[in-house]
């Protein structure tokens, strides 16, 4: 369960989040929608623990654990995963090397044994197959020279292997054509479970056709201005964000 309470965040002195409160229960898929500049990406970075964001007030808890003093790596080990809007390239480091390093770093942080290589290989192969990721892609450096679609599929692969307790999908649909979007969404849907919460951040209703949310929240100027069920997303698609801007004001 993710609990965000009255969160105020500034970047370089500029206020981005202004008293945001949000709860996402285990097994729940929550969607956050909002116009550009409403602070959606900031929210995902802050929850993941990026250091250049200053939390001036409020708290973030994952399964009751306050994340304030936790490093990004510690948050990851607690089970938090972020699907990046723009996944980073790491030249020279093969995807396999990276995956193994990440999995074992998290296991080590949780006091678990390292994953044996054959076991690791099998898990990667199985997960890759479902996402239509070739063995060749796994041997290439992380995201290096990948298309937008390949990068996003690689994000979902990592999510599948790291088995997070809670995942945030930051505009997963950006840069994806309709076929790639379907593959990624199917990958995400396969990872839905009673224990795992998901926060889907998006501009468009389109993504929610593929990943059906339980709850929908509208974000504007750094706070949630309206919450509801899936019908809210459809309404937004018709009317746009302008009305909510006025409501918030």
């Amino acid at each position, binding site marked *: 369960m993710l609990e965000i309470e009255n969160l105020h965040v500034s970047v370089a002195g500029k206020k981005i989040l202004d008293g945001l409160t949000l709860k996402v229960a285990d097994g729940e898929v929550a969607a956050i929608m909002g116009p550009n500049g409403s602070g959606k990406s900031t929210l995902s970075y802050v929850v993941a623990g990026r250091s250049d964001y200053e939390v001036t007030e409020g708290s973030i808890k994952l399964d009751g654990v306050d994340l304030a003093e936790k490093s990004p790596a510690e948050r990851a080990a607690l089970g938090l995963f972020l699907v*990046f809007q723009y996944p980073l390239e*790491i030249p*020279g480091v093969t995807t396999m090397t990276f995956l193994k390093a990440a*999995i074992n770093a998290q296991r080590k942080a949780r006091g678990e044994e390292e994953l044996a290589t054959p076991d690791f290989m099998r898990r990667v192969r199985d997960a890759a197959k479902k996402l239509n990721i070739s063995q060749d892609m796994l041997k290439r450096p992380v995201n290096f020279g990948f298309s937008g679609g390949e990068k996003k599929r690689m994000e979902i692969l990592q999510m599948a292997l790291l088995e997070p307790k809670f995942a945030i999908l930051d505009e997963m649909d950006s840069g994806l054509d309709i076929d790639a979007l379907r593959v990624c969404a199917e990958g995400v849907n396969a990872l839905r479970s009673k224990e795992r919460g998901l926060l889907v951040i998006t501009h468009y209703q389109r993504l929610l056709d593929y990943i059906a949310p339980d709850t929908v929240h509208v974000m504007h100027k750094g706070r949630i201005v309206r919450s509801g069920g899936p019908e809210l997303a459809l309404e937004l698609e018709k009317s746009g964000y302008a009305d909510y801007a006025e409501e918030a004001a």
Partner: protein
Amino acid sequence: MAAVQETVDKVRTLDVDAYKYGFTTDIESEKAPKGLNEDIVRFISAKKNEPEWLTDWRLDAFRRWRTMAEPKWARVHYPPIDYQDLYYYAAPKTAEGPKSLDEVDPELLRTYEKLGIPLREQEILAGVQADPNARKVAVDAVFDSVSVATTFKAELAKAGVIFCPISEAVQTHPELVKKYLGSVVPVTDNYFATLNSAVFSDGSFVYIPPGVRCPMELSTYFRINERNTGQFERTLIIADKGSYVSYLEGCTAPQRDENQLHAAVVELIAMEDAEIKYSTVQNWYPGDSEGKGGIYNFVTKRGDCRGDRSKISWTQVETGSAITWKYPSCILRGESSRGEFYSIAISNGYQQVDSGTKMLHLGANTSSRVISKGISAGHSQNTYRGQISAHRKAKNARNFTNCDSLLIGNSCGAHTVPYIEAKNSSAVFEHEATTSKISDDQLFYCMQRGLSAEEATALIVNGFVRDVLQQLPMEFAVEAQKLIAISLEGSVG
């Protein structure tokens, strides 16, 4: 990933600024008086019981040196060196040169053990039994000015390979030394090489006879121990027709507040169809976090592909020294000869690196390849300087150069200075260069997946240098990987 994890663990156990090899060995030594003049040159020559031609060769070099000026073109800065304030000869005190390992001062052996260099053949052999995959490495250890022990001599002799201190080769194989010494790096080559020619103390000599593939890796380990002592070793390697040798060199020095001068000369000669692979892991003391102390590493290394189809390959991992000034080069004289240069140069703290290579294509169908990876962190400055040239007779000369720089933090600098010169129209030279920075975004991405900042940096850096690490012999690759992480320690905020 095991290696990366190991590196990271290793880094964590170290204090910041802890240079692992900074201890000194308390051992009595015999020194020449401070300063440099003809008498000192004669003293060194006499100590080594050298023939007259070599004494004259040194004196000639000394006289030339006095007329020369220090080169100023490199992007490095240091206060003037007082050449009269140095010792030019220091030797551990023993009545005679050691005849066997049993005669070597146990204190010295312990020093090398601390450095992780197993000199005792028994130990190496024991190691071989324990691990059938471990390869044997013959070691020549040079302590300040003299070579103290060379291992596996007998076994090498069976193959006809000569591997001994150069001072010994002067006595036992004077014709070879006389024929090749100074034939690649002439006495008058440059200020530091000329100084070395006058006062060189010891170093390794290798001769591989025609058609012989040297049965093991050869290695020299250099150690500066004495205070205010310059180290001027001289290495000469000759690979005769159709032979092959792989040679490794490692270096460390105690932690001292004053700067110490190291001006070595390495000459390689490859005859027809011969191949020499020369690898260096340089880890001289780099100075403290404020930039105090450290070694001035002013080194001239050059290989001569004298015979047709010969090949010389330089691989270097440069992590130490306050200042590094070295350009391992290849003269591609023989037709279809090939030169290679693979380099990882890391600078942190206040280190300055000006390093690169020269590939001089003289013969037809010669080819060369240059892969340089520079990593700058802290307040350091890291320059790649390379020269690729094709003589008018070097028809179809080919070169590929790839020169990448990686920056960590905001206070360091990376510079690339390529000189490319083709005097015939059939030459094809390619030059690629990139400069990148470990971005906060990359670090955050790795950290979000569970890696700590140190682990993430080690992973990214290891990815950056992978092409070059693969060129190193196995044993050195692992050591080099650890060294890279240790050198970059404290570079991530």
